[in-house]
């Protein structure tokens, strides 16, 4: 019963082995020299620019919110994607109306300038 899942198991095992091997080998073979720059907690050896806890500009929130909305609305495409053959022209029409409404929302936020970055 579980046989079809065997490739997934193999991928899973390989996926665990490769990163472990990479980390293990570099720990075994690589030289270890702690310099001041390397001990700085972030920015991978470069000189840090500014503090770590920076305030995120509000426009990221706006983009994130718009992303959530359009991302989740796509959930209604899932049933259609599964049954689009059986649903035929009827499904096409329904999805057309749905996407047209979604597109209207997109045009609205675009024209209102919510997508403008600066």
């Amino acid at each position, binding site marked *: *019963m579980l046989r079809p899942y065997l490739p997934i198991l193999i991928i899973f095992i390989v996926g665990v082995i490769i990163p472990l091997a990479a980390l293990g080998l570099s720990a075994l073979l690589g030289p270890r020299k702690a310099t001041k720059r390397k001990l700085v907690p972030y920015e991978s050896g470069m000189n840090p620019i500014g503090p770590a806890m920076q305030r995120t500009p509000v426009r990221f*929130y*706006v983009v994130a*919110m718009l992303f959530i909305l359009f991302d*989740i*609305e796509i*959930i209604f495409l899932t*049933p259609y994607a599964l049954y689009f053959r059986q649903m035929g022209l009827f499904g096409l029409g329904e999805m057309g109306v749905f996407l047209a409404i979604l597109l209207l929302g997109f045009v609205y936020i675009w024209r209102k300038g919510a997508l403008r970055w600066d």
Partner: protein
Amino acid sequence: MSEISTNAYVLVSAILFTIGVIGVMTRRNAIIMFMSVELMLNSANLALIAFSRAKASTDGQIITFFVIAVAAAEVAVGLALLVSIFRAKRTTNVDDVSTLKG
């Protein structure tokens, strides 16, 4: 592999729902309250899916789609409001935002 009974799913969903309710009632940070509400909605989704499987009817799954979409809309509006309040007051704590009393 043994079947997990519908009762077990519903029990888990009831526990999640209760955690969500307690979260909304005890926490005072608006974002955490939102997360608790999400927990409530998703516990209901879990129950719907479990019932849907037990009955072999698709109605529950369809309801779940609607719940997910509506929850996203609600969160988007909530975050937008939070951002605008934060601009004015610099806080997301609901107790700090209380000019309305009477």
